[in-house]
């Protein structure tokens, strides 16, 4: 797990040379999303800021972006600005944004099929659990299918793990039919 973290740090270092510690600077952004929907929303915001940011304005990214977005992403920029993790110049800020978009795109995704519509709290907790197990920030791609009755189906990097009540019901019924014959 440590080795993986080290490799991710080095990867991020290759992506950006403008930020001293990109892993730390990107952390608030990756921590604020836990599923694919959240990632797509953030990606849209970042691309909008990256496209519209540098039009004769000076200052921090949150200051520049405030004019054309009210998204909560501004708070995240403010956090890294306070921590002194944001690059000072226009060019470096642009590069920082581009690297952040690329970095988030590389996050692994776990597809999870549930029998119910989960709450955000549950998804966040589940996302954290999965990220801990995988050893790196992992996004959830949630699909709701009532036919599985209960439990979940996980798909990760081509592997599938199915533990559903539907499957258990089938098993029980098959055993009872075989037993009756």
């Amino acid at each position, binding site marked *: 797990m440590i080795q993986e973290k080290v490799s991710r740090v080095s990867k991020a270092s290759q992506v950006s040379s403008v930020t001293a510690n990109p892993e730390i600077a990107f952390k608030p952004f990756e921590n604020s999303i836990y599923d694919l929907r959240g990632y797509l929303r953030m990606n849209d915001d970042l691309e909008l800021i990256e496209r519209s940011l540098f039009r004769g304005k000076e200052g921090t990214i949150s200051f520049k972006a405030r004019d054309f977005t009210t998204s909560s992403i501004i708070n995240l920029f403010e956090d890294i600005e306070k921590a002194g993790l944001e690059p000072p110049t226009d060019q470096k800020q642009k590069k920082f944004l581009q690297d952040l978009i690329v970095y988030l795109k590389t996050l692994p995704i776990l597809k999870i099929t549930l029998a119910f519509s989960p709450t955000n709290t549950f998804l966040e907790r589940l996302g954290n*659990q999965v990220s801990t197990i995988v050893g790196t920030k992992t996004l959830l791609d949630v699909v709701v299918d009532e036919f599985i009755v209960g*439990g*979940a189906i*996980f798909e990760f990097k081509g592997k599938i*793990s199915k533990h559903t009540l539907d499957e258990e*019901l089938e098993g029980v019924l098959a055993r009872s039919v075989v037993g009756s014959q």
Partner: protein
Amino acid sequence: MDLPNLNQNLVNVISLGVSLLTFVLVLALLYKNSKNYSNEEKFLAADNHFREHLSKKIEELAVSTISEITSDSSDRVEKEVEKFIRELSDLSSAKGREIAAFVQKSEQEQVKESQFFVANMLSKAEKEVEEYKKNKLGKVDTQIREIVISAAREVIGRAISLSEHEDLVNKALEKAKKDQIFT
């Protein structure tokens, strides 16, 4: 009398003479021919008589010869016919026996074939019935299972609370971890 008239008369006399002479010659020839004709007639009559006599003789001879020949032939033919009928009768009785044997053999073969066919059909029908029964039972089993699962889905799905769902997902995550899909 003048000279031209004289010549004319002379020519007339000469021509008359020639005519008379010709007439006499013709008469002579006619006489001679009439004589020849009567001889020929006699000869022809004798010839006819001879021919008739000869024909009669030939006819009598032919009749007697033919009657002799036919008499011999009819005896021989009768014998031949009798012999032929006898042979034919023997042959037909032998053939009749052969046919009877063949028919009997065919009947036996047909009976055997029929029995074999019926046995086959019966066996095939039994198999088909068994297969049909199996298929139908299989379909009924599947339908029952689908109904039960559908009912169970409905009932269990409604009965499970949100916290129980979350708990089931957490348990599934633990099992997935054991399945090592995250490594």
